[in-house]
């Protein structure tokens, strides 16, 4: 029985499960504003789990990445996205390419797939990491699924950021943090990527009068 597990680990497990739930909620979400809010929640869960890992393993550099996550992914990026959609005046509903229940079933299949894939690794991991890689991988694949099934540029970007969050979760919870320099590099890349996405939104809207990427299916082969 899992009684021997310390509470910090139990909480991380719970947070991991909630993270998966948030990604599923994003997959089911029809409205773009809620999508961004969910993304902020995801960031909050991530920051919390990072902080708990930092506390339980006494790795102080993880506090920095928790703080970084909190600032960047809970405040700055959602704020930027909110501003963007206000400026671009796009508050429409998200249109999906496949209907949502089907997407959900595909999502479940992906979760099973990634749990299977990660099972041999979970066997190896001791203590804190057990099972978390599987959940992180599932979140990664689900974010990819969101990206594939949405038509709007903004949604794709939120999915991209959620993908990045899932990877970050893998890095902090499953391996107790990458070296700090790498983490800073990743965070910088994400920030720059978001700015470039922002530039793109304006360019795309200027050119196509819409942010619907179905306009962008001319190039083939």
């Amino acid at each position: 029985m899992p009684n021997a597990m310390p509470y910090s680990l139990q909480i991380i497990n719970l947070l991991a499960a909630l993270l998966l739930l948030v990604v599923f909620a994003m997959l089911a979400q029809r409205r773009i504003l809620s999508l961004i809010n969910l993304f902020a929640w995801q960031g909050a869960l991530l920051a919390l789990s990072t902080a708990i890992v930092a506390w339980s393993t006494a790795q102080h550099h993880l506090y920095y990445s928790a703080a970084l996550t909190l600032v960047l992914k809970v405040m700055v990026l959602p704020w930027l996205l909110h501003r963007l959609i206000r400026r671009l005046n796009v508050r429409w509903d998200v249109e999906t390419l496949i209907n949502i229940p089907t997407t959900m079933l595909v999502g479940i299949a992906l979760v099973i797939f990634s749990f299977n894939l990660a099972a041999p690794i979970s066997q190896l991991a001791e203590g804190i990491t057990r099972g978390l890689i599987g959940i992180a991988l599932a979140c990664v694949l689900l974010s990819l699924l969101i990206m594939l099934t949405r038509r709007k540029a903004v949604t794709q970007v939120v999915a991209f950021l959620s993908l990045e969050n899932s990877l970050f979760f893998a890095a902090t919870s499953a391996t107790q943090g990458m070296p700090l320099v790498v983490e800073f590099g990743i965070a910088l890349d994400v920030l720059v990527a978001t700015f470039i996405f922002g530039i793109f939104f304006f360019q795309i809207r200027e050119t196509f009068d819409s942010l619907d990427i179905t306009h962008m299916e001319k190039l083939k082969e």
Partner: protein
Amino acid sequence: MIDLYLLVLLLTPLLGGGLLAVFGSRPWAAELNSAMSGATFLAAVALTMRVVDSGPQVAFNEQFFIDQFNVFLVALTAFVAFTTSLFSRPYMRIEQHHGKLSTGMLHLYYSMYQMFTFTMLVALTTNNMGIVWVAMEAATLTTVLLVSLYRTPSSLEAAWKYFILCGVGIALALFGTILLYFASERVLGEGGNALLWTHLNEVKGALEPTVLKLAFVFLLVGYGTKIGLVPLHSWLPDAHAEGPTPVSAVLSGLLLNVALCAVMRSKVLVDGSLGTHFAGNLMMGFGLLSVVVAALFLSRQKDIKRMFAYSSIEHMGLITFAFGMGGAVATFAAMLHMTMHSLVKSAIFFAVGHAVQKSGTQQMEHIRGLLQVSPTVGWGLALGTFAILGMPPFGVFASEFLIITTAMHEYPWSTPILLAALGIAFAAIFGKIQPIVFGETNAKPLPHPPALIPVFAHLLIALILGLYMPPYLADWYRQAAALLG
């Protein structure tokens, strides 16, 4: 000493990026761009000579690592970046003249060009597998705005595709890196050293095989997206066709190589851990598929830059296949082919750029009679095409010959597939380029003199290496091949 060379090598493009971000609109920005690239090239030459003489070295507290393999790519990258900057100086001015580019866009182009060189050099020289990822992502970020430089609907589409697909691909590579760290942490302990390649290389036998196996799949798929391996290639033709020609040249000639370098670094670790040919088989499979699919797509292309983009996929596939086979000869051949492909493909893109400027279209059916309009551009394209198709005496022939004979020896079943694909590619490209070069036209000669010194310089090197391989170079490549195993 090596620290100093490396510092100059990395700081020059960074400084260039900074300077051009400020002065990019000045009339002399293009010259500054070339000068910075030239200085980078000189630093690369100095570094190369040092490393080839005295063997692999680490620098800056083990954060950087140079051996014969990556210094070869450093030299190649710096050289092609330099010649491309020479080419882009007149080329971009003509584009500006035609009203396709504004000063602001050129400003962006120059500073991003230097930053792109910087990120590639960092990706090549860093010892940290995590920084490799960061630099690769940064390389995407710096080029994505260059692909959409013209702001046409199709260029925006191409850039968006490039951004999203490479972003997703590279995210998978990050997952692979995390798994790698997960495995190494158990052996090397926590902290900064656990992702240093030199440390990993020492303990590769102790790394957990199941984890590394999965990690390699993710790394190959992730970086493979950047290499343009089928079926992850769909961004590549778009980005090459819609971006400005100098960008196509560096993407095709350099970025793909850098991504392949990252894959090769991972392969060495995985081979050491698994002790099987798993990584090699995977690479051979992806490589072969890329060669075949790209060859089949070649004949259906109407856009000239798109066609050569598919040719890049084909050649990268061939190189990946050769690296996958492993062994001294195949690796040697793969590196030679990498060199040849970078030189020849960028030369072709230079010539194509001028041909397109002349006719105002990228559609091949509207480009005719280059020889009449501008004999140098015509001959440049014709010779470049001969070279890339593997006609002797160009170096591509030598490397392809080596790859195919090795394949015949080691994996006989793959030879007919490779030969058939190369044959199809030959027929497709030759059939399309022949009327472009030799056909009839009533177009007027070019108003601007084309900048073709880089084209002929590249082709000359390819020719010389095809006829005679200097012992120094052969030795160097052999050492590098030995490192990769």
